[in-house]
């Protein structure tokens, strides 16, 4: 079975500066401030006790007050997985540092989140719309997206 790394275990092995920055701990999810995401990702990937080398899924959820970006990551060497998330409260121009330099698998997924949720990832090699066409107005997966009736 894939071992889901417990948050207690993770908090014990985190270095001090990262440990301080953890803002919230759910039963299987660590919440990280947006500015620390890249640092955190580098630690998770390079730490010899974790070796979380590939990103399964990266997605955004719009909770109206804030956006939550959820990272599901996995270590194939240790057969373990973990979840961490970050919250962005800026709604007008949400920005987040890209993790493509750490996990290349996030490349298309970050573009998708940008396209559908409107969160801009900094230092991404090609931050452009992927599913919708250039010039599409709005980001459809946001909860306040207004439908355009194209039928008539």
């Amino acid at each position: 079975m894939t071992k889901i790394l417990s948050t207690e275990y993770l908090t014990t092995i985190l270095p001090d500066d990262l440990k301080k920055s953890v803002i919230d701990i759910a039963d299987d999810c660590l919440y990280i401030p947006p500015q620390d995401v890249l640092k955190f990702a580098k630690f998770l990937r390079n730490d010899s006790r974790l070796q979380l080398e590939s990103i399964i899924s990266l997605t955004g959820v719009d909770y109206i007050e804030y956006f939550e970006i959820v990272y599901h990551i996995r270590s194939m060497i240790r057969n373990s997985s973990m979840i961490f998330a970050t919250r962005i409260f800026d709604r007008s121009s949400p920005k987040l540092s890209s993790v493509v330099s750490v996990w290349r698998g996030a490349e298309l997924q970050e573009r998708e989140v940008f396209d559908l949720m409107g969160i801009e990832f900094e230092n991404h090699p090609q931050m452009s719309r992927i599913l919708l066409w250039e010039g599409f107005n709005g980001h459809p997966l946001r909860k306040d997206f207004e439908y355009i009736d194209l039928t008539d």
Partner: protein
Amino acid sequence: MAFKTEPVTINLGPQHPSTHGVFRLKVTFDGEQIVDAEPVIGYMHRGTEKLAEERSYVQIVTLTDRLDWVSSMTNNLAYVRTVEKLANIDVPIRARYLRVLCSELQRIASHLIATGFLMQELGTFGGTPLMYCFREREKILDMFEMLCGARITLSYMRPGGLVQDAPPEFWERLKIFQKEMPGYVDELESLISDNEVVLARTKNVGILSDRVAVDSSVTGPMLRASGVRWDLRKADPYEVYNSLHFEIPIGSVGDTFDRYFVRINEIRESIKIINQVVEQIPTGPIRTEIPYFFKPPIGNAYTSVEAPKGELGFYLVSDGGISPYRCHIRSPSFINLTVLKDLLVGSTMADLIVVFGSIDIVMGEVDR
């Protein structure tokens, strides 16, 4: 002497004989050599994730059929498993066995399609291997019709079990299938695997190293062809895979031939699994009755299954209502496209088509 050439940009697609749907590839050629390739997708974006936000949990099952239309069973399975995890629904043991049986049948069908179209793109005119693959796939689709009345868009699974138990004639047909299929796979393999032209066209073409594959979150047969022994059915056994014995076939270098060969071997392993399921399957109920408009508790859940094309995961967020607050689909075809450029640059146009065919994407799943 430096020979000055001028690069030519060609739009392969959106309509092209070998793009598996509406897929556009902006390729820059220098003669026959590819210097740049950029996939352009989204021609088939139907907004499945947004549609799911205003449907009830059972109704979304019909949406998942239309993601990867050559393997609806595994899509259904991935979705209903997430709902069951979200709402803590228990599934009867017979239903679990039937789910495994169906998803292995679907895996065979999907791999047959992948192999057939790869051979079609190698240029067997009229597609003799493709027709042989379709011939065998047709038998699987007939069995699906017996199970649930449809052949492609199945909607066979429900949170809590399955729609209906299998009819007796299904088991009879399955017995014939079990007996005949290994012979047909052998025949297909000896038609393709030893053919010198196929070997020349696919060996050492589009090599994907294991390091790049793991970094880019590539999953499924493509990952295993690179030599990485990783399969969710073994690594994180779901349903009843714990009690079944099978091997995980892997490739040696990660070229196009390995990708094909891993698929053929996976068909063999799937037949083995089916044989074991038929022996082990118990009798009993196949569905836990749950209300149609049920409300899972507030929370979120992510589960994934090993779909024929890779890891298919669903991430559901519930706000306690009758429909999910957010439904994210982690589709293998989409993420496997990350490495497309690495595979293509430096090869030739003829290799482009073959490499692209060996990735085995379905546009319904890429664009969602």
